[in-house]
């Protein structure tokens, strides 16, 4: 299941877009232009990308508070996303959702979610929908290491096994849930074996290695589409930023992060494989993407800054379809 050249270029473009999107949001947040709470995905780009490269718009994902990467990988419009993060009227959610609730139902992106663990039951629903409608679609529940201790996630795991749902649990072990290290919050010591004990195949991969994620999730998606039920993939990829922007990270040795950026940068690792080791692509091809991505981000931000906020009457619309 090796990706072809187009797929490689696409994967790189997604990862790079996420990286630059997040880097820019970090700056904008510091400048005070982005309202609310924002949680960045830097360091974990290969996970969303390796997962979503297997999905079509008809497949659904449920996401988390750290959802920008999932959106981009699932194909959401970056300009509209940027507008949404700035809470502008033409954003993906008309400025009513913001970073923590960004969604694009037409792309099968069922929403970032500010309640830890709440996405898993929703992905169960999407997978059930696919099963009932027999349309061959699958669903993915993204969730963090911290979220795996939430009752809703456990319930979803057993539920998906019992109903043999076409569902993939993409568990993003980034080392922390807020300030709390996984060494503390996980009683079992190992997440993958705890997950496997629910009765589904579960594997652990390096979440900064696009190819590892891509391969493991490919297997899981194949099982799901074949009606063989759910699987889990634990993707280990530590967080580069604070829990949210503005987090002073006093609980963490900041040297950790430098090391991650040197040794666990999914973009560097990807280039290393595709350009240096395997020579599937030329550096120039990737550099060209870099440039395009930066331009996209720049112009998106410019546009977002200039765009109008929601109108006062928007406050009370979109609560019900009819009332």
């Amino acid at each position, binding site marked *: 299941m090796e990706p072809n050249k187009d797929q490689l270029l696409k994967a790189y473009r997604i990862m790079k877009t996420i990286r630059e999107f997040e880097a820019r949001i970090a700056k904008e947040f510091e400048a005070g232009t982005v309202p609310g709470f924002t949680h960045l995905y830097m360091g974990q780009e290969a996970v969303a990308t390796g997962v979503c490269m297997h999905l079509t718009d008809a497949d659904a994902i449920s996401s988390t508070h750290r959802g920008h990467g999932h959106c981009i990988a699932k194909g959401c419009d970056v300009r509209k996303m940027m507008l949404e993060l700035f809470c502008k009227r033409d954003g993906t959610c008309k400025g009513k959702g913001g970073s923590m609730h960004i*969604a694009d139902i*037409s792309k099968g992106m069922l929403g970032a979610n500010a309640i830890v663990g709440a996405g898993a039951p929703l992905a169960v629903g999407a997978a*059930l929908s696919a099963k009932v409608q027999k349309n061959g679609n699958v669903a993915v529940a993204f969730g963090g290491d911290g979220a795996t201790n939430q009752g809703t996630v456990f319930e979803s795991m057993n539920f998906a096994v019992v109903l043999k749902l076409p569902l993939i649990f993409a568990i993003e072990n980034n080392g922390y849930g807020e300030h709390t290290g996984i060494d503390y919050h996980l009683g079992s010591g190992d997440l993958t074996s705890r997950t496997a004990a629910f009765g589904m195949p579960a594997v652990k991969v390096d979440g900064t290695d696009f190819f590892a994620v891509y391969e493991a999730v490919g297997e899981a998606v194949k099982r799901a589409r074949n009606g063989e039920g759910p699987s889990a993939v634990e993707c280990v990829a530590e967080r580069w930023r604070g829990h949210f922007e503005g987090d002073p990270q006093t609980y963490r040795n900041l040297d950790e992060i430098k090391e991650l950026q040197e040794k666990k940068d999914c973009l560097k690792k990807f280039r290393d494989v595709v350009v240096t080791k395997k020579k599937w692509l030329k550096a120039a091809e990737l550099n060209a993407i870099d440039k395009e991505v930066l331009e996209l981000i720049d112009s998106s931000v410019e546009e977002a800054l200039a765009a109008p906020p929601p109108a006062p009457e928007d406050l009370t619309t979109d609560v019900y379809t009819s009332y």
Partner: protein
Amino acid sequence: MSVKSFRVAINEALDHEMGRDPRVILIGEDIVGGHGGSANNPGAGGGIMGITGGLFQKYGPDRVIDTPISESAIIGSAAGGALTGLRPVAEMMFADFLGVCFDQMFNQAAKFRYMFGGQASTPMVVRCMTGAGFGAAAQHSQALWPIFTHIPGLKVALPSSPYDAKGLLISAIRDDDPVIFMEHKVMYDDEGEVPDEAYTIPLGEANVTREGDDVTVVAFGRMVQFANKVADKLAGEISLDVIDPRTTSPLDTEVILESVAHTGRLVVVDEANPLCSLASEVISRVAEEELGSLLAPPKKITAPHTPVPASPVLEALYVPSQEKIETAVRELMNG
């Protein structure tokens, strides 16, 4: 048209809608009969109250789904399913169980449409048993509609008769917003005229069950039956305008305000707890909009601010009674 029970009325509504629309599915604990629809399972009882009986046999294992005891996953199934093309009807058995899956209702299903800027609709129904009178004690007897009514994004239906149960449930299933459908457990064997065919009762339209001029009685759910009996008993002496809002969200305040404008007297009867209740809501609306019409202070008849006691003796005192309604009405006329 024939006489049917509340139970059968609900079953018929589910049957009609499942027959009409393949996107309608049922999900919940034991709603098939406990073994999740193995086709050769002899006893597909249709839940502990038998409401979904026969539907598994008719619509099969993909559309009538037994689950583990995992209410968050059940409601998530409905909410996530609704976002992706289904119109799920989830059964929560007892409304009291909302506590273990409240997030999926109040932060997820209820808020999708707004948070997503109108992109989503979430056509799902959560059926649940409510109310006291069964000796089922503090955790299996609650009313709870005030809590759901408080939450923007949810609709709440509260049928008071077999006829309304069928019509409201069909409307709820066809509605594109999440609806909490509350079935009073004491009413399952109540009987009434129920047409055989499908029909709808609009959500948000009150029903005037007795027309009168002296006192407006707004009653919710099972309390409508009590209010009707009091109206019938007092007929000729005091004439009651009994209003059954049928849904608490949306709440048809227009009919209530018109009635109070006419009668000048108001009693609200609700078996929910009193604080931040529908009784408070109705009275406050009337005070805001029809203060000048009020000939006397409005009266609230609700459960006390206590949990539901196990003892049937206490439970009978807990639930509003016909006597209390009658007394309140008389006091209003004499005050």
